[in-house]
């Protein structure tokens, strides 16, 4: 049962959420929350063809593990696994899975949401939206290629 699974992982492979759910499930847990972030087709009226994710992998995995440590400190008895995919992702592909188990459900929900919020703040992973008529790194809108779009 996921003996070789890395609990804080950045990977180019498709993600199987069930493995992460199994990883955090144990007899003292009474709740498991499994969050899947998936690739959305439409954002602010723009149609995404696919996404490209890039990461500073060693630092990203370190930061994911740090988020895991913060969760077990804030919500004792929780167990956490987080995996983020990089590379090219198609619509509806899973980009991120966060699995949290806790003795009771409230902690599992709260800790899971905490994890995704921290990922969006501190984990060095970047997303590029590729549209029919262009592309842009998200979170990096200040950068305009020469003569670039507004």
């Amino acid at each position, binding site marked *: 049962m996921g003996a070789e699974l890395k609990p804080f992982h950045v990977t180019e492979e498709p993600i199987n959420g069930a493995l992460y759910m199994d990883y955090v499930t144990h007899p003292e847990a009474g709740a498991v929350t499994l969050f899947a*972030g998936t690739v959305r087709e439409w954002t602010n009226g723009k149609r995404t063809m696919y996404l490209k*994710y*890039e*990461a*500073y992998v*060693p*630092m*990203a995995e*370190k930061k994911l593990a740090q988020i895991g440590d913060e969760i077990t400190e804030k919500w004792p008895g929780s167990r956490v696994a987080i995996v*983020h995919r990089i590379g090219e992702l198609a619509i509806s592909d899973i*980009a*991120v899975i966060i699995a949290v188990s806790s003795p009771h459900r409230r902690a599992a929900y709260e800790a899971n949401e905490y994890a*995704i919020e921290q*990922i*969006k*703040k*501190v*984990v*060095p*992973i*970047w*997303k*590029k939206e590729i549209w029919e008529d262009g592309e842009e*790194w*998200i*979170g*990096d809108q*200040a*950068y305009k*290629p*020469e003569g670039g779009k507004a």
Partner: protein
Amino acid sequence: MIYLHYFAGLKEAAGKAEEELSWEVGTAADILQWAKTSYPEFDFSAVQIAVNEEYVLEDEPVQPGDHVAFIPPVSGG
């Protein structure tokens, strides 16, 4: 020598993911200034710096052998 790492829009602006820079002594701020001068088309205003895979403040000393990464605003998830 220090090792610089670029990502996302900065990687595209620099045309490379990594480069080495000959280096004796200085701070993260000095390297940031070097990068701003080297890649003036990139807006560094929201870029954070990581030294050896940890975020640092600009007065952090940087020593030969260190890995310095420029971290544009992240957008994972």
